[in-house]
């Protein structure tokens, strides 16, 4: 129950309306530090909308999303910060420093840069005309930009920048080995097979050194062997890096196998929240996923308390 004891991200009363359509309604959940949290639900339940709100690509209609990188999210601290009108509070105002971040107030690139939330996309978004290695180097833009003295020092080949680039190369090499793509490092990312592109997108997100990695259907389109490899990769990330994972997934073999915490959405509402075990046996979840026969509706409704 780390998501209660030591929450990294707390989402409170998140609502997202598109005109007359309410995609997400008053959603609350938290993501535990060091957990793999799965966000599941039938198609159109609003999972990707939640992702887009967390990563700043959508501005939520209302709600609060607080992320704390120092210690657990404390609601009193968040309330104090919210009343000041600031977007975040962090040590020395440094990029990448620990602090508390109100994600609903921050623009997308700042969420990635300051709050250190990285993400992948349902339809892969690699820089297809750049090499695999370049994709991993672009992901380290923020530290490299600082080392290049906002380009000026870099133009004259400052040693500081060369060191930073060597460090970026080292990190890129590390991830290349982990996703087993070292032999294709200098090939165009667009020329890789689908499964490799999926792994590369995860590695690219990891190169930003995130505290929270949001994966939108990482197993979509993978064969069973590739799914298994993905499980191993995600476990490695959780166990060996200070990165918590939030993922949207339809592949139950992935969800039940690796997640520590599952949140179930249906029609924008949270219908279940707990360990994989408890969610699997939740009648509401079973009803949502499998549907029920007509003559059992009354019985099931009574069971789930509708």
């Amino acid at each position: 129950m780390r998501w209660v004891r030591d929450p990294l991200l707390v989402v409170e009363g998140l609502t997202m309306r598109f005109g007359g359509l309410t995609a997400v309604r008053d959603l609350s959940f938290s993501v535990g530090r060091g957990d793999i949290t799965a966000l599941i639900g039938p198609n159109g339940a609003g999972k990707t909308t939640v992702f887009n709100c967390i990563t700043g690509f959508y501005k939520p209609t209302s709600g609060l999303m607080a992320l704390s990188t120092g210690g657990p999210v404390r609601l009193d601290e968040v309330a104090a910060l919210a009343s000041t009108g600031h977007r975040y509070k962090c040590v020395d105002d440094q990029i990448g420093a620990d602090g508390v971040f109100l994600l609903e107030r921050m623009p997308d690139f700042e969420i990635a840069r300051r709050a250190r939330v990285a993400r992948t996309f349902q339809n892969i978004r690699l820089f297809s005309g750049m090499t695999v290695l370049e994709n991993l180097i672009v992901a380290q833009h923020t530290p490299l930009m600082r080392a290049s003295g906002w380009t000026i020092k870099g133009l004259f080949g400052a040693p500081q920048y060369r060191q930073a680039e060597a460090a970026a190369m080292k990190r890129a090499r590390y991830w290349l080995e982990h996703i087993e793509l070292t032999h294709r490092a200098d090939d165009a990312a667009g020329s890789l097979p689908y499964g490799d592109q999926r792994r590369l997108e995860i590695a690219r997100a990891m190169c930003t050194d995130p505290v929270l990695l949001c994966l939108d259907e990482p197993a979509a389109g993978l064969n069973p062997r590739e799914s298994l490899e993905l499980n191993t990769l995600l476990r490695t990330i959780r166990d060996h890096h200070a990165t918590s994972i939030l993922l949207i997934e339809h592949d139950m073999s992935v969800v039940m196998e690796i997640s520590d915490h599952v949140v179930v959405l249906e029609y924008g509402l949270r219908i279940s929240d707990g360990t994989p075990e408890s969610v699997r046996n939740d009648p509401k979840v079973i009803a949502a996923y499998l549907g029920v026969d007509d003559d059992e509706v009354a019985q099931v409704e009574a069971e789930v308390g509708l």
Partner: protein
Amino acid sequence: MDTTDGGTPVSDGALPSPRFPIEDALRSAGLWALVTLGLCFPIVAFETLQDFSNRLTIEARPLLVLFAVAAVFAGRLGWLAVRYHGLPQLLPATRFELTPERKKQLPRIGLAALLIFPFFALLLTGQGGAVKWIDNFGVQILIYVMLAWGLNIVVGLAGLLDLGYVAFYAVGAYAYALIATYVIPATVPGLGPWAFWICLPIAGILAAFWGILLGFPVLRLRGDYLAIVTLAFGEIIRLVLINWVEVTNGNAGIRTPYITFFGLPFSSRTGETTFGDVFALPGSPAVHRSMFLYYTILALALLVAVATQRLRRLPIGRAWEAMREDEIACRSLGINTVNTKLTAFAIGAMFGGLAGAFFGARQGFVNPRSFEFMESATILAIVVLGGMGSLVGVAIAAVAVIGGIELLRELSFLKQIFGPEFDPGQYRMLIFGLAMVLMMIWRPRGLVGARQPTIALDGNAKAISASHVKEGHG
């Protein structure tokens, strides 16, 4: 398709037919000739002339039509024969293979050629003809190389379609004209001889400032919308230059001080010591001046090339290219795309401004007529033709386009074929347009479509095929 020794054609996939289908070929060529005849009828066949009493008369030009029809007929027939038989053996024997080592040497050979070009021209054409070759060809082409390299940052690297690039060229030229003609003589006349070198950085900074000014309103626009707004921006600058008569002198333009060699004039009517006197150089002042202009613009263009190469290997350059590939992914990685776009606009504009200041100093005169939309279109055509993002490709395209347009002025020998009435200059744009169409069929992604990676694991990365590289859409 390749040919065996016996000359029997072997095409991929299809079975070789026993002989060249001459009737089909003749029919096809005849059809092409007929279409040409139809097209020629209204455009080429008649010419309107004014006779001595100023009346409009129509004169038929049957010979010209006949020539065009015959040329198309023969061309089509020849093309079919080549396609069927393959090219005769002479081509494979002399084929030049562009190995990676040779490719690496290419920029160095090009640079050496550029450095010796003025002396080569002087040697071949003598004092009289050299000015034309150095100034009209060399300097003119290099100005466009520099402009195209500058635009390449915005269009080729950052993927932002800019149809109003000439505006920054104008800003640079007018910055030089106004400061060198009015501001410096009025405030510190002693600096007069240095006017060009003082104005150069100022023109660059001013143009960069205007680049950012253009960048802000168009940040949210993509594709066609961006292109239209940038086009409008270019026209606004030009219209302001025409109508703000008190400052710019409108269409009459501004006469600017001639460029000097760091204070030493190249020619003098009042008997001052000139550049030629001091260095005891032979030859006319015009040659000295054009050589100085040539090496100045060469240095400026190389500055753009070196800066571009360096920027590509820096985070800012990689962010430009990443933005061209996928803007949303960029934002998800913490890249501020607003700043990234603005820097691309600013740096591209700055190089345009530097070229503009040089243009002002070279012409000795600026007026708004030099900054029409056609200039933007030509620069963009060079970038697209060269292959977006490739410095070598863009440079070759500039030589081909600008050099080609200039060379087409030289076709006076055609007068011997078509009679003294024939003016080849009128066909310049037609031939140029045709060449562009053929180029785009032959190489749709430009001369050098492949992209060179900016960093590699094993030192020697291969180029990325154009099919993976995106063109950008915003």
